[in-house]
């Protein structure tokens, strides 16, 4: 098992290097990183030249990538532009945990991402819990009543759910539960932010602000997941071993919870493990309409400002998460499915 995990991690390293190289190349094609470097002020051309050299932007892109990866504290850089290297660099590179400094905020990338990551996790973990609860409930319910009226209604609604643009659903929810509830004098949900600035980040405040974004994400994802649970469940309840369980005179509930559910949930673990990190990224749209200060929104801002260190930081973290979740999924699988053993 340990050997398996180590092998998976070793396999993932070249993969992550390919990914980061591709992304680094693309990110450097996005535009002038110095355009918004000085905020609203224009940068003087002499400053621009110095900054370009200091940030290593004068180097060929592959050299920049190497510096991003392994740092430049082992080499001398030419800061004043006289053609001779004059001092050692200060960057230690991603491989040594230095993700660089944000062009915009002039703070370490990891610090910025860390703050936002926490907020995204609050949103996503809440959403995931809601999603899984309802997806299983709805999926199992409609699988057990295949082709009944309720099943047909649920099926239709799940198709509608995952055919909807997420931001449009967000807008509708905002329009109804925020704008109109306010007009009608009902208690209404806030549309933007994580908490009321006047009150501060208290738990009730955050919970209250979570309702609409979580509902938006959940409705879209529940639709897809519940269909998946339903089809898995249908496949399982038509298996021979379920008939065997019934032939033993076990009560229906027993058959469902102890025999069917575990088998039906197995393939879902893969799906959830694959989706979870992507869900964090997918929050870009939701976070931007609800002005939720999370990673998705940070990513969007970073692309607008061509803030390459932040951009790359987020992409690398998400890619690492994808790999990590794949490994966790595989491990979870071995605990739940006795047939699978990794050597």
């Amino acid at each position: 098992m340990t050997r398996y995990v180590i092998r998976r991690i070793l396999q993932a390293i070249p993969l992550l290097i390919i990914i980061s190289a591709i992304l680094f190349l693309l990110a450097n094609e996005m535009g002038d990183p110095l355009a918004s470097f000085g905020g609203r002020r224009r940068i003087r051309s002499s400053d621009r030249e110095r900054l370009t050299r200091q940030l290593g932007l004068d180097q060929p892109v592959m050299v920049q990538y190497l510096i991003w990866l392994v740092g430049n504290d082992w080499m001398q850089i030419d800061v004043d532009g006289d053609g001779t290297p004059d001092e050692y660099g200060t960057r230690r590179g991603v491989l040594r945990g230095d993700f660089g400094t944000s062009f915009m905020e002039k703070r370490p990338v990891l610090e910025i991402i860390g703050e936002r990551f926490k907020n995204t996790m609050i949103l996503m973990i809440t959403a995931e819990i809601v999603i899984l609860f309802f997806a299983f409930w709805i999926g199992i319910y409609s699988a057990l009543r295949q082709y009944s009226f309720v099943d047909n209604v649920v099926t239709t609604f799940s198709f509608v759910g995952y055919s909807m643009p997420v931001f449009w659903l967000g807008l509708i929810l905002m329009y109804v539960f925020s704008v109109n509830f306010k007009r009608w004098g009902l208690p209404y949900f806030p549309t933007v932010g994580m908490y009321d600035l006047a009150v501060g980040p208290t738990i009730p405040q955050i919970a209250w602000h979570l309702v609409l974004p979580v509902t938006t994400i959940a409705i879209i994802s529940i639709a897809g997941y519940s269909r998946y649970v339903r089809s898995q469940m249908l496949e399982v309840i038509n298996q021979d071993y379920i008939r065997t369980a019934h032939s033993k005179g076990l009560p229906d509930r027993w058959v469902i919870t102890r025999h069917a559910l575990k088998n039906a949930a197995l393939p879902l673990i893969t799906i959830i493990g694959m989706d979870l990190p992507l869900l964090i990224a997918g929050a870009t749209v939701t976070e931007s309409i609800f002005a939720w200060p999370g990673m998705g929104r940070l990513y969007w801002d970073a692309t607008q400002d061509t803030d390459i260190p932040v951009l790359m930081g987020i992409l690398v973290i998400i890619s690492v998460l994808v790999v990590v979740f794949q490994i966790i999924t595989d491990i979870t699988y071995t605990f739940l499915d006795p047939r699978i053993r990794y050597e």
Partner: protein
Amino acid sequence: MDPVLELINLVVHFHTQDGIVYAVNGVSYAAEAGKTLGIVGESGCGKSVSVLSAMRLIPEPPGKIVAGEIFYQGQDLLKLDKAGMQDIRGKEMAMIFQDPMTSFNPVLTIGHQISESSIVHFGIGQKEARQRSVELLELVGIPQAVDRFDDYPHQFSGGMRQRAMIAMALSCNPSVLIADEPTTALDVTIQAQIVDLIKDLSERFDMAIIWITHDLGVIAEIADRVVVMYAGYVVEEADVFDLFENPSHPYTLALLKSLPRVDTYSSEKLATIPGSPPDCLSLPPGCPFAPRCVYAVDQCRHENPPLDQSSFEHQIACWVDITTGRER
């Protein structure tokens, strides 16, 4: 002697997208304690559906028991509610399935799956159920049963799995044991062991056994009485010796002719039955076997012969007397 389980004029249909499948069309048979009733027929002839209906295990929908009665010790099972039926299943009537590979839940231990019945039906605790299950595993001949209790199905070989399946079926001392082609998926040598095991157990526990198979060889070995089914109809029913001595339905005769024999030396090829079993979606008018039957006369193509129940010993559904080749 009164039968333990009796099916009377059972009719079962399946409503599929392609139309109604007439799976079982008025089938009657009875199982007696300590005796083995063999049901023979090609796949799709309704033999499995009839016993699954007796256990009320056919999926409804698409299946539907249209008519008939099923008596277990005088009680009509078709009138029972869900909970009543759950009390019968596993406790009074148990079942062994064809494929021991797929009939065990892959993610639960063998021991767990054997213990479940007694926990549910006798309300005993985990510990007691475990002890009981280990005893059952020993009874069916699993070595080191204590250690194998916590194994998963994939850790058992095919024959072992079928033994475990038998242990599972026996866990509540059922009066009726239904074996749905229990040896089909096994190697020949293992088949014989399983047949012997069940034969032995049925004598020890005085169970009524219903043994479904398409293998007449197995029937000769284990059955006391035989029901031959074709396209959802019983075409012949007789005592096992009588059936092998005097097969009276052309279909039974054809089945027997297709069986290799060791007692008579012959260089002839084994006979086959021409054509294929009818599509139960659209049964031909008349006798369903008529299109494949070498004895068929005009009447066979118009009118389906009823099962002649005038003598209990040997019942046949055929217009033709095959010994003479003329109509009866």
